[in-house]
């Protein structure tokens, strides 16, 4: 009896459901409808950009302006002062793109490294208990983060450059290093026979140091005794390489710059444009990073420091092992923004003639070919790619240092 009642009931429910399904058509269901609008929106966005592209193309054609990417294989015909890959006047526009791209990456990487190092130093100094150091750092931060970056670039380039001597009266350090208005000249290392062996030995000794560190850590975890690693590491670092160096007969030749005619020739040269731009980017960004470091450190509860002190950790270890790792969680998202800004700011290079992507490709190449849309699109794509890569790397790092909650 009971079973029968149940089946009647479910048959009724089924009937009601099928009727209501007939009333609510599929497009009237909330889920489907949301999906439909998403698809429509997506299509209209695609259509929007397609129409913009098509209109631009047809307008260019109507105005008699050449378009397309065939210019990349044409001969560029102009010189570039700093190239990381081989380049000369008969190279193509595609090559100038590569040269500019590498120069942009060079300044960005150098800038990020220097700004981070200096920023950490200043940020920690700002919290120093030494009144003078803390105040000097505060002044540094307030001056450099409040001045427009372009002005700082001009300052380092035109004001500082002007006070340097001409090549004939170069400042010099021994017979090796020269400084004048044309740049910083340093000896260029030229590897000779046997250098590969030296390189292998060097890498092996570094691997040895790493192994030693891991072993020492395990030993400490087991016994609680901390081993003095520095002397042993130094010995591993220096002795094998030094022996190889002398037995292979010093397989590295240093090419020194010398004054020939109007300018110095030979050796490695750091052009003043690179030096000035790096200085400006480093100083400006480090003042912002210093504040991030300070806020990160202050965000760590003071009780943590006190607890570490109660455990008997020395002050330097408290900073390195307790405070900084926790501060990182606060700092990394903000540091990412600063890195992205630094990469974008490096395009100010064009103001002082450092041959970065904007100056070489979106500048000279654009003007010689007149193909603004293609070149600007490529340049934007480059900055987007570089910055998305930085974001991605930093986010991964951030995920690693995040507090592992249980």
């Amino acid at each position: 009896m009971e079973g029968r009642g149940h089946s009647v009931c479910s048959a009724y429910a089924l009937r009601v459901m099928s009727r209501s399904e007939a009333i609510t058509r599929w497009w009237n269901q909330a889920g489907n409808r949301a999906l439909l609008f998403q698809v429509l929106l997506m299509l209209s966005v695609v259509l929007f950009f397609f129409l913009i592209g098509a209109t631009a193309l047809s307008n260019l054609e109507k105005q008699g302006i050449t378009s397309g990417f065939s210019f990349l294989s044409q001969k560029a015909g102009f010189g570039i002062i700093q190239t990381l890959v081989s380049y000369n006047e008969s190279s193509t526009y595609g090559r100038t793109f590569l040269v500019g791209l590498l120069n942009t990456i060079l300044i960005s990487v150098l800038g990020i490294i220097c700004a981070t190092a200096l920023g950490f130093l200043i940020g920690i100094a700002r919290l120093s208990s030494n009144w003078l150091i803390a105040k000097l750092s505060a002044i540094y931060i307030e001056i450099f983060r409040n001045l427009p970056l372009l002005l700082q670039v001009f300052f380092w380039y035109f004001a500082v450059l002007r006070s340097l001597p001409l090549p004939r009266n170069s400042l010099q350090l021994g017979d090796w290093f020269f400084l004048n208005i044309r740049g910083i000249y340093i000896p260029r290392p030229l590897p000779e026979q046997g250098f590969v062996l030296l390189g292998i030995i060097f890498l092996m000794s570094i691997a040895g140091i790493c192994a030693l560190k891991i072993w020492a850590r395990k030993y400490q975890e087991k016994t609680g005794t901390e081993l003095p690693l520095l002397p042993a590491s130094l010995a591993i670092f220096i002795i094998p390489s030094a022996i190889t160096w002398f037995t292979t007969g010093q397989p590295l030749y240093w090419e020194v710059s010398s004054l020939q005619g109007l300018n110095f020739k030979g050796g490695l040269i750091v052009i003043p444009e690179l030096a000035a731009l790096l200085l400006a980017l480093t100083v400006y960004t480090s003042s912002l990073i210093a504040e991030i470091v300070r806020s990160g450190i202050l965000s760590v509860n003071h009780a943590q420091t006190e607890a570490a002190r109660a455990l008997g950790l020395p002050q330097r270890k408290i900073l390195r092992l307790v405070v900084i790792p926790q501060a990182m969680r606060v700092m990394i998202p903000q540091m990412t923004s600063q890195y992205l800004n630094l990469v974008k700011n490096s395009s100010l290079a064009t103001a002082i003639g450092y041959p970065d992507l904007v100056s070489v490709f979106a500048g000279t190449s654009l003007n010689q070919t007149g193909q603004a849309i293609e070149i600007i699109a490529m340049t934007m794509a480059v900055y987007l790619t570089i910055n998305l890569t930085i974001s991605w790397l930093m986010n991964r790092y951030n995920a690693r240092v995040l507090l592992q909650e249980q």
Partner: protein
Amino acid sequence: MKKCVISSMAALLLMMSVIPITAGTLDEVKKRDTVVCGVSTGLPGFSSTDEKGHWKGLDVDGCRAVAAAVLGDAGKVKYVPLNAKERFTALQSGEIDVLVRGTTWTKHRDTALGLNFAGVNYYDGQGFMVSKKLKIKSAKELDGAIFCIHAGTTSELNLADYFAKNSMKYEAIVFDTHDQAAKGFEAGRCDCLTADQSQLYALRTHLSKPYDAVVLKDVISKEPLGPVVRQGDDAWFNVVRWSFFAMLNAEELRVTSANVDAMRRDSVNPAVRRLLGLDGDKGQSLGLPNDWSYQIIKQVGNYAEIFRRNVGSGSSLKIERGLNALWKDGGIQYAPPMR
């Protein structure tokens, strides 16, 4: 909701089918009552502002001539200062009506950029400026030198060509504007400043010690500089081209801003009468008022006058007429007859 979506889509489609800026610059200028003229960011003698903020120079007078012809008032010009990299885009996009900015006429620019050169208002050539202290007499002694250049100019290409031809080496530092390049030269960053010779003379006047620098005699390129308009707008092209020819013809016929009123009243020379719009088809075929050329000469002057005033003996640049003299005086400036 649905209506809103549909109507916004329709608006979007309408916006998309924008007609490109081609014909009709002349009508637009008349309606706007101003000529928008692209000039340099500051090059003495060609286009720069004086202490009162007024634009002066040979290129500026080119703009003023067009305004005098079309609107009857040489003052109705809006100047847009552009650096070398921006100039073509500004013209192509319709931001300016005409570009008079020491722009070299080359095949590529004339054919691939959707532009037309309406004439040559200054025949120039690329030269070198060095410090007197270097005691350099010829460009051949510049092997291994460092050069300061203005970005996006033909100078960059000519320099590479010249050094390749003579198998010499060089390095180039590329600046955004003329002024910055000159500053780099003055600071000693480079041995040599290279640009069109006229520009070198002009930039030299801006150095703190102008006479410590010399412009070498060597000229390494042909640089015909002239006004540029958009391709495909022939009516406007004609107006710009003939505004310049009117000034050349006026010099040839010795009509100046001082004597133009007397000439208009008394002259019996048929060529002068045609020039001043008294006989012939006057301004009709150009779509301009009958007194268009009279207004140019009255308000701006003939070519000899604007040359002397801006870059010649009446200016601080003191450039000789040279190639820019009329053909009958040994130069190559030559205008077709006005008839």
